[in-house]
């Protein structure tokens, strides 16, 4: 049973130019993305800055309206298409999809007490005050924060603690899906580990379904069941986490894996570095968007665009040479 099915999602931004402000081009921020998240599953969405991963998550949350495509969401009492839902009709559905923010400093209102911050989703969804208090205490305990935090203000807490508060707020309504937008990338490495452990613990206890957006593969390994790698508005590879790390099937994935810091320099394999810049989504290169940076590039990569295809059970990749080349993973 899938909680979320994203089908051919597109988000284009028109570029206006000239006196008449005609559309002269389009930024294809997200250009045909499809994936699904099963109940209790965590899917990681990984890619460099500007690849469209945040746009995808904002479309699912309907902070943005998609240009086309479908976002089928199981709201418990039937499946709805979030992509075409009018904004007004979204409000009762919001409680089912909650978000964990990247920046723990700007995501908490500095003028509200922590207890009120966590209780806000409960309050606006009509939970009575007595129940709210009990739930806030329960949530604070769940994210391993002391109960005294309730009457304090966000300025009294460190980044990691604030992120716990943000997580408690996201979980307040028992959402069916949690979208975590780079939840640890603003934190110190040691604190990152704590938050990752907390998320693992919560997955275990609450059977969370989660879309975990990240810009590098190092943090993703521990939390996600499957990984989708994005490049210039498209998914280039989807695979179960372990398999993707062991044997990537797309050269871009290999590049990202090479960027994962290895604790033992002697065990490190081939050095791979992504040269050049991410392609401009307003003017994506013809053929495979990755070809200007790809070390395995061939002539047809420059003209034909590879489609996402299943190369092995559960393993999808969009590379012409997926079956020919041997790519290095990490142990």
């Amino acid at each position, binding site marked *: 049973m899938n909680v979320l099915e994203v089908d051919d999602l597109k988000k284009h931004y028109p570029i206006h130019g000239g006196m008449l402000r005609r559309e002269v081009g389009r930024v294809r921020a997200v250009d045909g993305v499809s994936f699904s998240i099963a109940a209790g599953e965590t899917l990681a969405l990984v890619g460099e800055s500007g690849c469209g991963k945040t746009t995808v998550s904002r479309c699912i*949350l309907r*902070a943005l309206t998609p240009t086309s495509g479908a976002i089928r969401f199981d709201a418990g009492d039937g499946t709805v298409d979030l992509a075409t839902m009018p904004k007004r009709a979204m*409000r*009762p559905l*919001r*409680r089912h*999809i*909650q*978000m964990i*923010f*990247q*920046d723990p400093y*700007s*995501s*908490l*209102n*500095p*003028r509200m007490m922590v207890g009120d911050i966590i209780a*806000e*989703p409960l309050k*606006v*969804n009509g939970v009575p005050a007595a129940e709210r208090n009990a739930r806030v205490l329960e949530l604070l305990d769940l994210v391993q924060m002391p109960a005294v935090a309730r*009457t*304090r*203000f966000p*300025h*009294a807490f460190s980044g990691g603690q604030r992120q716990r508060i*943000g997580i408690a*707020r996201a979980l307040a*309504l028992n959402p069916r899906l949690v979208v975590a937008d780079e939840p640890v990338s603003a934190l110190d490495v040691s604190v990152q580990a704590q938050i990752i452990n907390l998320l693992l613990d919560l997955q275990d206890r609450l059977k969370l379904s989660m879309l975990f957006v990240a810009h590098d593969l190092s943090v993703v390994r521990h939390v996600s069941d499957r990984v989708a790698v994005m490049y210039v508005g498209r998914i280039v590879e989807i695979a179960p986490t372990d398999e993707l790390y062991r044997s990537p099937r797309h050269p871009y994935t290999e590049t990202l894996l090479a960027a994962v810091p290895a604790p033992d320099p002697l065990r490190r394999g081939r050095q791979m570095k992504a040269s050049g810049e991410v392609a401009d989504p307003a003017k994506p290169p013809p053929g495979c968007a990755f070809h200007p940076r790809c070390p395995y590039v061939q002539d047809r990569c420059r003209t034909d665009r590879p489609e996402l295809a299943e190369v092995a059970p559960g393993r999808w990749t969009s590379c012409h040479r997926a079956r020919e080349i041997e790519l290095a993973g990490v142990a």
Partner: protein
Amino acid sequence: MSATTAAAQDRWAEATQLQLTWWRFRKHRLAVISLVIVFLFYMVAAFADFLAINDPHATDARRSFIPPQAIHLFDEDGFNPHVYGLRGVRNMQTFQLTYTPDPNRKLPVRLFARGYTYNLFGLFETDIHLLGVEGGQRTDGIFLLGTDQLGRDLFSRMIVATRVSLLIGLAGVTLSLLLGIILGGISGLYGGWVDTFIQRVIEVLRSIPTIPLWMGLAAALPNTWSTTQVYFAITVIISLIGWTDLARVVRGRFLSLREEDFVVAAELAGASQGRIIFRHMLPSFASHIIAAVSLALPAMIVSETALSFLGLGLRPPAISWGILLQDAQNIQVLANAPWLLSAAVPVIVVILAFNFLGDGLRDAADPYG
């Protein structure tokens, strides 16, 4: 950790943003002093008639251009505050009245003395004043800052002028604030063509040089209007420009807050538009508005002073700092009675105080900005 620091930390952790702002503000010594000064000025405005010594409207040709007079605190009998009676002698070469203190006529100065009748807060009539002299002739009195051509006591006039000048600032700011918040809020919240329209209007208004605009508008006021009507009209004219600054501040804050994560979080939680605006956005920039207001107030006060000084604002018999300074326009008068220029002192002091106060408030409200 010792118990006291732990308690202090608890206090800090549970402090609201308002408390934190106040704690930061307290460290800004100049701003705190300015706050006291501004407060004192408004107290003077509130109790102007009580603090005034002589009737600010009473004219008497026999006491024109009296130089500033000092209160003597002691005499040979010990503490006995008094002023000397004045004797006016006409200088037969210049035909000018010159005043010499008459040491034989000692006029005792009394606290809570009886003077001219006035209405305190418009509620009850009284004639008690902080200072006054006992006995003496009609032309006797305490003239701390001297008198003007018509023999009116400058000190009392300056005290009474404080009320008009400071209140016109408050009224103008209130009006600008209302316009600014509503129009700036609409501009920032809705965006699109409404935003473009309001912003262009602001630009057009700001591109008009203020003095000619004010001159035109002030000239359009009918001669027959009463002092109160003119006062009200001048307030409107001044705030016509003043609101644009505040509208921009409000719009900017709305625009930046709309993207703020905690606002998005409230939206995603399903909060209503009203809750987002009033619970999350407005409290976040209330402090900025207070700071902007405290910086806008001196501009208003200076505007009124400038307009009245040029004869375009309030007209006598209204008394404001600008009108008092009008008397100091004439170089001949100024040469004979330089004390008339002292009306500029409160203007300078209050403007400086407001500016330091505004700076302090802004720093305290937004330590990172």
